[in-house]
C-alpha cells in the first residue's frame, strides 16, 4: 500500500497519536458488549473531537446502534470506558445519567416525536424535563423552529408533517437544551434522497454555525461523504478502518469499506469490464487511484512528456471530497510492449498514485 495515504491517516487519527483531552467530547476505550452469543461491540476505541462530524458506518448488525447508545447510557457496555467531556459514564446509575443526557441531543431514524403534543411542545420537551419556565420553553422552541425552517408549523401535530419535516422537528428538539454533542441514529435512513440531502445540509449548517459536535451512524456512504469530517468503519463489533473521509474514500483498506463504498467508487463501465480477460491482449487496462497532492499535479501531461509511448484515458475523473481531489482514472496502454507498460506503472507510482492492472482486452476499445 501507498505511503502517502498512510501518513495522512495517521496524522489526523487521534487514537494513533496522543489524545488531547480538552478537545475530546467523546472518548471510548476498549468497549465490549455481548448479546447472548454475539459480540455487538468487540473492543471499540474511538475519539470524537470538539466541533467535528464523525460518521460511523457499518452494515446492519455491525454494532452501530449499540455503540451510539453507549454514549448516553441507553446501553451499558460489559467492559471498557466511555468518557463524555472527560467524565467516565459507563458505570453511572440512571439518576446520574439524567443530567448528562441533557448535554447530549439525539435524533432517530423514525423521528420518535410524541403524537399527542404539538410541534412546539415536542421541541420544548427537553426544557420541560429540565424544569424551565413555560415562557422560556416556548421562546426557545420558536427560535429553534425558525432555525429548522418550520415556524409556521408550531401549533401543528406531528401526524400532519412530512418525513423531512418530522426530522427537522427532531433536530430542533435535540438542540433545545443546547447540547454539547448530537447523536444521529440513522437519521436519514427513512427519508427519500432529496429530503436526505436537505436534512444533511441542515446538520452541516448547525455544525458550522453552532460548532456542535456530531456523531452519526449510518449504513449509507453518501451520508458520510456529504457531511462527515472523519469516518470510522465498524464491522462485527470492531472498528476496521478510521480516518478523514477523503482519504478513506481514496484508499479503502478493508473489504467491508470497499463494499460499503460500492457504487460511489468509480468503476469501469460494465461493457468494458465484461471484455476484460486475464491473458495478454491488444491493450492493458489500468486502474489509477490518486488523491490529495498527487491529484493536484499535472499527472497525465507529465506521463505523456516523460514516458514515451501511447496511452489512452478510457474512463474516470477527479471528484472532490472535503475539498480534497480524489480521483480514479482508467488508462489503456498497448499490451504489445511490456517495457512500456512497466515504465508507465513505475512513473505513476512515483507520483503517489495507486496502480492496479485490471486485465487485458483483445481488441482496442
Amino acid at each position: 500500500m501507498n505511503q502517502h495515504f498512510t501518513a495522512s491517516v495517521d496524522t489526523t487519527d487521534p487514537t494513533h497519536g496522543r489524545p488531547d483531552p480538552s478537545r475530546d467530547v467523546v472518548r471510548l476505550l476498549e468497549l465490549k458488549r455481548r448479546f447472548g452469543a454475539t459480540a455487538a461491540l468487540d473492543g471499540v476505541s474511538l475519539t470524537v473531537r470538539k466541533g467535528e462530524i464523525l460518521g460511523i458506518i457499518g452494515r446492519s448488525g455491525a454494532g452501530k446502534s449499540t455503540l451510539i447508545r453507549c454514549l448516553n447510557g441507553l446501553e451499558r457496555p460489559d467492559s471498557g470506558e466511555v468518557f463524555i467531556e472527560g467524565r467516565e459514564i459507563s458505570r453511572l446509575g440512571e439518576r446520574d445519567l439524567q443530567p448528562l443526557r441533557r448535554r447530549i441531543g439525539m435524533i432517530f431514524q423514525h423521528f420518535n416525536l410524541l403524537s399527542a403534543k404539538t410541534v412546539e411542545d415536542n421541541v420544548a420537551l427537553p426544557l420541560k424535563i429540565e424544569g424551565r419556565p413555560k415562557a422560556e420553553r416556548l421562546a426557545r422552541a420558536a427560535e429553534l423552529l425558525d432555525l429548522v425552517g418550520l415556524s409556521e408549523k408550531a401549533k401543528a401535530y406531528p401526524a400532519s408533517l412530512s418525513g423531512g419535516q418530522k426530522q427537522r422537528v427532531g433536530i430542533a428538539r435535540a438542540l433545545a437544551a443546547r447540547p454539547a454533542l448530537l447523536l444521529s441514529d440513522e437519521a436519514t435512513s427513512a427519508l427519500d434522497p432529496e429530503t436526505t440531502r436537505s436534512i444533511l445540509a441542515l446538520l452541516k449548517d448547525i455544525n458550522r454555525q453552532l460548532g456542535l459536535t456530531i456523531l452519526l451512524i449510518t449504513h449509507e456512504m453518501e451520508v458520510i461523504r456529504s457531511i462527515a469530517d472523519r469516518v470510522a468503519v465498524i464491522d462485527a463489533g470492531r472498528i476496521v478502518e478510521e480516518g478523514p473521509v477523503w482519504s478513506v474514500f481514496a484508499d479503502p483498506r478493508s473489504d467491508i469499506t470497499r463494499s460499503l463504498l460500492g457504487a460511489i467508487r468509480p468503476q469501469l463501465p460494465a461493457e468494458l469490464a465484461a471484455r476484460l480477460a486475464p491473458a495478454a491482449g491488444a491493450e492493458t487496462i489500468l486502474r489509477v487511484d490518486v488523491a490529495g497532492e498527487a491529484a493536484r499535479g499535472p499527472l497525465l501531461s507529465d506521463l505523456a512528456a516523460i514516458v514515451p509511448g501511447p496511452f489512452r484515458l478510457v474512463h474516470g475523473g477527479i471528484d472532490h471530497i472535503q475539498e480534497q481531489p480524489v480521483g480514479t482514472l482508467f488508462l489503456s496502454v498497448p499490451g504489445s510492449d511490456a517495457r512500456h507498460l512497466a515504465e508507465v506503472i513505475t512513473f505513476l507510482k512515483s507520483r503517489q498514485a495507486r496502480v492496479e492492472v485490471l486485465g487485458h482486452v483483445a481488441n482496442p476499445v
Partner: protein
Amino acid sequence: MSPILFELLLRSIWETVLMTAASGLISLVFGLPLGLALVATDRGGIAESLWVNRALGAVINGFRSVPFIILLVALIPVTRLIVGTSIGTWAAIVPLSIAATPYYARIAEVSLREVDHGLIEAARAMGGNRWTIIREVLVPEALPGIVAGFTVTLVTLIGASAMAGAIGAGGLGDLAIRYGYQRFETSVMIAVVIVLIILVCGIQWAGDRLVARLDRRA
C-alpha cells in the same frame, strides 16, 4: 305504566347511573396506575421487576376469574367494613369497583403497551426520569386507548350492576327481574330495555367522540 312504576323506573335509573359512575370512577383511579405498574414492571419496562409483575398479574387474574355474582357475596365482610352495611346501592359499589378495577387495569395495560418503545427511548435520551416518561409519554400517547377502554368498562359495569339487585342495591336490572319478569309487567321490561339501550349508546357515543378528539395520530 302506573305512576308508581314510573317513579320506580326513575329511581332505578338513578341507582344504575350511581353504581356505574361511582365504581367506574374508582376503577379508573386504581386501574390506570395498576395498568401502568403492569407495563412498567414487565421485561424491558421502565421499572423492570418481574417478581412484582408476576405477583400483580396473579392477583389481577385471581379477581378476574371469580364470577361477579360470587364476588358480590364473598366480599360482603369487606363491604360491611368499608360502607358499614352490606345492603343497598352504596354497598354494591364496593364489589363492582373491586371487579372493575382489575378489568380496567388489563384494558389500560394493552393501550399502554402499544406506545412505541422509541418514544420512551427518546424521553430517556432527553434525560427524563420514570415519572417524566409516564406523564409526558406513556399516558398522553395511550390516552385514546385509555379513554376507549374506560368506555368499555362503563358499559360492562351497567351489565354487572344488574346483578347487584341480589344484595338489594336496586337498579334497572333488579327492576326488570322483579317487576318485568316475576310480575309479568311487560311494559316495565320494555321500558328498562329501552333505557339501557339509551344509556349504553350514550356512553359509547360520548366515549367515541372524546377518543376522536384526543387522537392526534392520523
